[in-house]
């Protein structure tokens, strides 16, 4: 929104500026009735392509309709810190492009970047064999190009990060797939878009390794009943098997195309 502080490292605009205000307002209640022609248990189609960033050790670009983000993996490389660590360190940094949200984001790091980074970190950290990389750091960088709900962002970010790690040839226990769900009343919708998530009572994000049927992350917000949350997790876990297939397919086809 407003660019409050003068930053001599960037080209600066006016001291203050505001998002345009529209006379006709969207009704927030309409969020849940958003039409997108998919069933409650359907997720958005995933376009996933590994190896897009040629400079990185591994990378992936993911697009699920309006959620678009790129992820690159650098490492394992020597940790900067001097203290010895027996296990490798995983570092996840998330950056939203200034134009990625409905309101312009200031280019400075904010709390949401960090929140998404922590969630993605939790999703993928247990899948990596960090004990094989003493003294090393694996950097995972994510740039969100277009954001359609923080839930989708975390889920897609985890998928892209896991794919990029596999693309970088880093040893892992399994691929991490992730899926989100929104609950309103008794109705559960998988992979909600931003408006749906805003209109929902609560949301659940699940990350798991379908190959090992183990869960690496559970992230629930808003209000949900225990039964509702468990039901969401089960539905998400089922859907993650499909996501896993997409990930495996994209990795295999990228391998065969590059020879």
């Amino acid at each position: 929104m407003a660019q409050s502080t003068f930053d001599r490292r960037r080209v600066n605009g006016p001291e203050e500026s505001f998002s345009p205000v529209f006379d006709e307002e969207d009704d927030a209640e309409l969020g849940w009735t958003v039409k997108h022609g998919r069933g409650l248990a359907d997720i958005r189609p995933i376009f996933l392509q590994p190896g897009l960033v040629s400079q990185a050790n591994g990378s992936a670009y993911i697009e699920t309709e309006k959620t678009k983000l790129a992820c690159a993996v650098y490492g394992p490389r020597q940790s900067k810190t001097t203290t010895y660590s027996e296990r490798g360190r995983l570092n996840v940094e998330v950056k939203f492009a200034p134009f990625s949200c409905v309101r312009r984001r200031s280019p400075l790091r904010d709390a949401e970047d960090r929140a998404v980074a922590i969630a993605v970190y939790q999703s993928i950290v247990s899948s990596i064999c960090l004990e094989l990389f003493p003294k090393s750091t694996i950097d995972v960088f994510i740039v969100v190009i277009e954001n359609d709900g923080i839930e989708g962002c975390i889920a897609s970010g985890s998928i892209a990060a896991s794919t990029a790690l596999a693309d970088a040839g880093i040893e892992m226990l399994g691929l991490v797939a992730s899926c989100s769900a929104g609950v309103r009343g008794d109705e559960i919708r998988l992979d909600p878009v931003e408006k749906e998530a805003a209109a929902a009572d609560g949301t659940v994000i699940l990350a798991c390794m379908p190959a090992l049927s183990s869960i690496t992350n559970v992230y629930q917000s808003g209000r949900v009943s225990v039964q509702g949350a468990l039901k969401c997790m089960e539905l998400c876990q089922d859907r993650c098997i499909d996501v896993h297939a997409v990930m495996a397919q994209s990795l295999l086809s990228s391998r065969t195309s590059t020879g």
Partner: protein
Amino acid sequence: MTGLSKVEISYIRSSLLSDPPLRADGRAPEDFRPIAVETGVAPLANGSARVSIGQPRAGRGHEAEGAGGGTEVVAAVKLEVDGVGDDEEGGKVICSVSCSPAAYPHLSSPALDDLQSDLTSLLGSVLSHPSLCPQNLVIVPGQKAWALRLDTIVFADAGNVVDCLMLACRAALVDTRVPSTRSVEYRAPGRQSGTLNEVPDDLMDVDQSRNGPSSMLETRDPSSAVDFELADYWDEGKVLESRDSWPVCVTLNMLPTIHFLDATSQEETAVPLRLHTMFSFPGGKPTSHGMRMAGAGTSDMTQIGLLLKHAEKYARNMWIGLEAKLAEEEARRSVKAREKFYGGRRR
């Protein structure tokens, strides 16, 4: 502190897995250390609470390592008047956590910053969720609202800091009073004013603050209320509307076959995987406000299903305990507040 040695970690883990499970201080897996709650600790705040888990060994410095000690947190709520943006309903909850460097003497300052922002984002994602925003933070619909700043400070961390933080937050929020306000309206003379005047000797037309979504219809009406004033009355104000929804947190530390509660720092190091669950029981009905898995390790559906059932039970016990304590504190408080107000007047 350089963490624990491998043998210490394996000793803690194997003790927990032995039958019956055993912990360093003799507790059973589902036992908490003694919890102390005190509200109204910050006189200048609109609501505040101090919570400690385990016995704080204040003033004994770094000996917290290995020797137990306690986790101690203070939470305080300050209300600030804030403009309402064009597409906002008004009222917001802003959380922040700061960690005293004394609580983490072994952390470098960037690591401390990271920890603070991690805890802040955890608290914020649960407590600042729109579903918890109290309706009565609106002062003048479409114009002004209270911004609720919930600041917490971690004074000592001997493990299980998240549960302690959430307890302190709930206690402080329940302790919070929103000052009574009345909207002030400027009207052309001669117009009929249908106002309810609580204090008759007021000079201006006053209108009792109208809260809730019903008044949202008038936000674009230029002749409606534009400003407000504070009521001068012994009562400090009204409680927050969603006070029965602010959740408590129970952290379940997970080993493959068992789980345990209220881990000490050593236990947290030895058993990194945990599940934070936030529950509230408005009207006795359990509602989950947040779940976060943290730490390296994996779980599975059956374990999580089981954990959640247990978590609900533990959270309910904690909720009931906290409610009883808060009711006690409240009784004490209103007497104190009344005395303070009239005492101040007489002087």
